[in-house]
């Protein structure tokens, strides 16, 4: 999929008038230009997920948001209004289209069982239920209500949560709420390393 590229020369003839003889343009169309591929695409303003400059990007998707279209990315370009990047992007930001539209994306939940030598598919509901059961078991097994000095500590020492660098503030707050309520102390993030 990724190496299948846009049709290279979708042409619009301009310039010299073309007289068709025997299927040939004997009088050549002297200048043929590709049409602007983003002319009628939908623009969505987003933020580059890579470094902390947080450049504004415009994601161009197929279609005009009409009901019968599934949007797919056709191009990503810098947002010229953004005061910091002013439309510019680095080689990572400029390749975001390939990040969104990437054949390596994970598309379904998988599990690797103890001793397993490969991934197995697992329905979402089963995966989430099993995870919840494991969380509860590990928490109940490792929860400490009082420390050696008898002081209330209410902490769960058997579970760790590590968050990534592109998680939104809102996701992070949800995680802080959920994990601190479970008593999780090992709450860490890319921010540390």
């Amino acid at each position, binding site marked *: 999929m990724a190496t299948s590229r846009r049709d290279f020369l979708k042409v619009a003839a301009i310039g010299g008038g073309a007289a068709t003889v025997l299927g040939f343009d004997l009088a050549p169309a002297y200048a043929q230009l590709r049409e602007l591929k983003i002319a009628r695409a939908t623009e*969505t303003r987003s933020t*580059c*997920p890579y*470094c*902390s*400059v*947080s450049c504004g990007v415009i994601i161009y*998707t197929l279609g005009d948001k009409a009901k019968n279209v*599934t949007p797919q990315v056709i191009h990503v370009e810098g947002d010229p*209004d*953004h*005061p910091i*990047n002013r439309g510019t992007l680095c*080689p990572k930001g400029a390749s975001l289209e390939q*990040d969104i539209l990437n054949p*390596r994306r*994970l598309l*379904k*939940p*998988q*599990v*690797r*069982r103890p*001793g*397993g*030598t490969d991934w197995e598919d697992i329905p979402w509901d089963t*995966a*989430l239920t099993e995870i*919840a059961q494991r*969380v509860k078991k590990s928490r109940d097994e490792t*929860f400490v*209500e009082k420390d050696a*000095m008898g*002081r209330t*500590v*209410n902490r769960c*020492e*058997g*579970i*760790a*949560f*590590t968050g*990534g*660098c592109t*998680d939104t*503030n*809102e*996701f*992070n*707050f949800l995680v*802080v709420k*959920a994990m*601190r309520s479970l*008593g999780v*102390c*090992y709450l*860490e993030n890319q*921010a*540390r*390393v």
Partner: protein
Amino acid sequence: MTNGWIDIKNTDMMLIMGGNPAENHPCGFKWAIEAKRNRNAKMIVVDPRFTRTASTADLFLQIRAGADIAFLGGLIHYAIENDRIAKDYLLNYTNAAFVVKEGFKLPEDGLYSGFDPAAHTYDKATWNYEEGGDLTGKAVAAEAPHKPAPVPAPAKPGQTPPPAPALPPNVAHDLALQHPRCVFQLLKKQYSRYTPEMVERITGIPKDQFLKAADLFTSIRKNGDMKKAATIIYAVGWTQHTYGTQIIRTAAMMQLLMGNVGRAGGGVNALRGHSNIQGATDMAGIFDNLPGYLKVPNPADTDLAAYLKRITPTPSKPGQWDSFNYWSNTPKFVTSLLKAMYGDAATKQNNFAFDYLPKVDRNYSWTNIWDNMYRGSVKGIFAFGMNGVMIGPDTQKNIDALKKAEWLVVGEIYPDETSEFWRAPGITADEKKNIKTTVYRLPCAGFAEKDGSMTNSARWLQWKNAALPPPGDARLDQDIVAQIFLRVRDLYKKEGGKFPDPILNLTWPYTDPQHPSLTDIAKEINGKALADLTDPATQQTTKTGQQLPGFAWLKDDGTTSCGNWIYCGSWTEAGPLVARRGTEDPSGLGIYPNWAWSWPANRRVLYNRASCDLDGKPWDPQRRQVWWNEAAQKWVGNDVPDFKADSHPKDHLGPFIMNPEGVGRLFVPLGAVSDGPFPEHYEPFESPIQNPLHPNQSNNPVVKKLTTAADKFGTPEQGFTVVCTTYRLTEQYHYWTKNNPMNVQLIPEPFVEIPVELASEIGVRGSEKIKVTSARGTYVAKAFVTRRIKPMTIDGKKVYQIGVPIHQGFRGIAEDAERNARTPANLLSPTVIDPNAYTPEFKGFLVKVEKA
């Protein structure tokens, strides 16, 4: 960043060190180039390698990795000796005049007063200000010879430690800066040892080059001129050391000495590595904080009052000065957070559910997660967008740790090394069968598929929109966390279990609980009124249920809820300020007040009161940020004043409103920094030399080694003589773009940058394979033989440095095609951490290099 990306264009002088912004922050780096193009600003780059940033510099110095404090200490020494300091600023906006307690000792032998060698900690009693009044012009008795402070007996289990010493409310001070124990004199003494000769011995930078750089950098303060401003720009090249916090402190001290903090084109500017690292820190995705930099409770905090008393500072300043001490509002922030988390279950009677929070009294940071998983006590781990195996340090230890976990839940968009640790290279089929870990790999949504806000390095919260749905059966990350949490809650409802109260009572006020909208959460973070509120000064009101206009509205009586006080004001009744797109910049300073929203309170440059002189007039009339308006009797300006708006300059309210002193800290009292009130140069944990300042105390004394069999360290005697640094390349992004054919095409294979001289010594030509070995592991890649890293002379010894980019691992386009050795770079790095920020020492460890 104290300032912001665009503000760099206002600078006259840049010191870029411990960072490589041209490669890692190219679009932010444009503003450095703009400063050069439009102001003829000068750029000094100090780095172990001649980087692509260095290629645009006016002056480049090659430093040994990890010798940064020696360089910066040398700069401080030079600035003081040559009178290139901002005298009024120093006297009035820093604690230079504060007198330090008798008994405080500088680390001539590598140790400050109060060291306990058994516990690797300091008793910080002498790291404090002297109580008293104005000592200016008063005769000072000759100092008694230093007596070592008594070492307190270590606390026994079951014994409550004595209360921590507090800062004195009325600080002794000498405005003539002559008292031998005043901060300025101590500072001068401390860095008098950092002579250009010493700088050369430690850093490998020849004395004449160092002096050239020192002269250039401090030239903006020639003849007492205060108009110009210099910025210091750094990144993880400073944080990833066993004294990383102290390197940054040294830079901050330099900037305070030169009067550069708070000013357009000035500041101390940390370039965070990733899009929302700033936000993750703000939101306390880290063990030792709660949202908004609130310290996490510890077991000694027997109730809410005790906790608040411990973490709420009281002013500590000269009697005739004033201090805003903004952290005095801590109880309002904490109470509002508890209301946001536990809603109606948080009442005055139950200490606002304070007991629901886990109490933390030891290090639960990143490396300790893996250490304790390796030891077997961490049973399960979530990794959401976090590739722990690759990030390291010590990849092998992390893989071995995961083998001992019961379960691992990975939320990712690509197959990564962490989710596939059980089939890492070298694991045999038999071994695989013995790995009992259950691994769930859940497909998440990419950035383009999610809305929400991220906070950039300049503290701007920017809302983004979703452009398309996640592919296949992938789900939104927030939905996954919600769906797991709600299932756990159901289990506790049905089955009971250990202390279910916080789980059952956690607020979940989202329109669709299984699919919480990020808009709902953003509003929850901003906070709302839980009762009708009136501002006594303006008579403005906020009705019950309305979004709060800003953190000045927060209450400690349970009538407000707010998920993160520093984000209060980001999503008000006026709507999402984080989504604003105003492109006007009336001042031309790059403030863009109506673009998105920055914390705190939309201020773009922190401590901007310090951009003005004592009378409230800008140091540079060309770059006017804020100023005192005598007619209106308030602070006004192009930026939001980071100050008490109606504080008249004659009240001498300190510009550093978050410090209890009200002024910038050259000397950090008590335990705010655990390894010394002033930074001191220590060697990296693995170093080619003994510390020339104090060979008997070569390393940071408060750093503790981990003790598992996996934690190995190498020495020059064992043949590990080459200094190794890890880093990113501009073409790749951590462990992410190795899945992107475009970026793989740009940098197709792993390589190691090595000096020409080292290459000829080991008989390797460019693009031939080499083997890099540390005490932990081996890394094989092609040699990038370059003249951009020169051999160095360190304390008389010839030392080579090499550089290892971190990007490639064992899953990726090139990896899957077996076009590389499938070894992560962090097989090499050691697990040893900075005692303040707990960041591992990825920079400047020892290796040997051979032809493969």
